[in-house]
């Protein structure tokens, strides 16, 4: 599947805006820094790290000339899947990112606590994705 195939279904075409993309990258960096504040609860650390992952995926998607249709359900999943086509992440990484998405869904709706292992993983993935996205954008 290509990103073009998804146009109209879950994506729409846009003209890339370097300022908007940079704004997303800056926000992701701030969120990663916040995720490392150990005074915060696990839930909030997890949430901001996850937010950074979404912002990075979105930045890469916009740099490729697309954005998700927020009117359609499942745009977080689309955003994660798009990373395979934009930054070029491996399937293994996508599987982990998608599992983090589900953890967030469950925690949001059930009010369950988020365990340490999921928090550690989410922050690690956000940091690695930041580096991957920055390197990929340089070559665009």
């Amino acid at each position, binding site marked *: 599947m290509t990103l073009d195939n998804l146009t109209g279904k879950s994506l729409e075409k846009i003209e890339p805006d370097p300022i908007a993309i940079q704004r997303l990258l800056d926000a992701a960096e701030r969120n990663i820094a916040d995720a490392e504040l150990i005074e915060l609860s696990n839930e909030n650390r997890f949430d901001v790290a996850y937010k950074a992952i979404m912002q990075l995926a979105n930045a890469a998607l916009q740099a490729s000339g697309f954005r998700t249709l927020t009117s359609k359900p499942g745009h977080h999943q689309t955003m994660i899947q798009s990373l395979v086509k934009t930054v070029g992440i491996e399937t*293994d990484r996508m*599987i*982990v990112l998608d*599992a*983090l998405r*589900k*953890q967030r869904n*469950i925690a949001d709706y*059930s*009010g*369950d*606590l988020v*365990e*340490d*292992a*999921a928090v*550690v*993983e989410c922050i690690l*993935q956000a940091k690695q994705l930041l580096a991957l996205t920055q390197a990929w954008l340089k070559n665009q």
Partner: protein
Amino acid sequence: MLSLADLLFKEYRRQVLALLLLRPDQSYHVREIARLTNTQPGTLHKELTKLAEVGILKKAVQGNQLYYQADTNCIVFEELAGIMRKTSGLADVLRLALQPVTGQLQFAAVYGSVASGKATANSDVDLLLVGDLGFAEAVKVLYPAQQELGREINPKLYSVNEWHKALAEQSGFIRQLLADPLLPIVGNKDDVR
């Protein structure tokens, strides 16, 4: 290694019961069952006929297709479904999937709707893992099992320390988890506390 389910039921019966009794809200036609259980339609057909004759399954004709479904009114439905839930299908698949990390696990069990037999066709598998392994590692070993089971698996992963702390704190989640049915995958019920 011979599993409990292998010993109790011969292959075709075990496969059919595991598929149909664990998804009682779903009916399947013979070829579909053959494909999902990796069995021969001919032999399978005989097995299905027998199971329907004694009332474990019910059959229905739709167009020119014969459909089979678990008959939840069968007097031993709950017991048989319980045996399949604990020994075959899901538990086996999860046990096998977790094999590479079993050494790092103190305890693993399914909780939620699948463990209590209230799962619908779309229910996720809620899996409690207590042990010292990484989240990514757990997700990766479980991923192929998701496809095999046709259900998403949601791991809830605690380190051993974190688990003991959570038990001591008795949050709403822990209280409910301990009160509801658990389906042990690694370790047994006594390992949980």
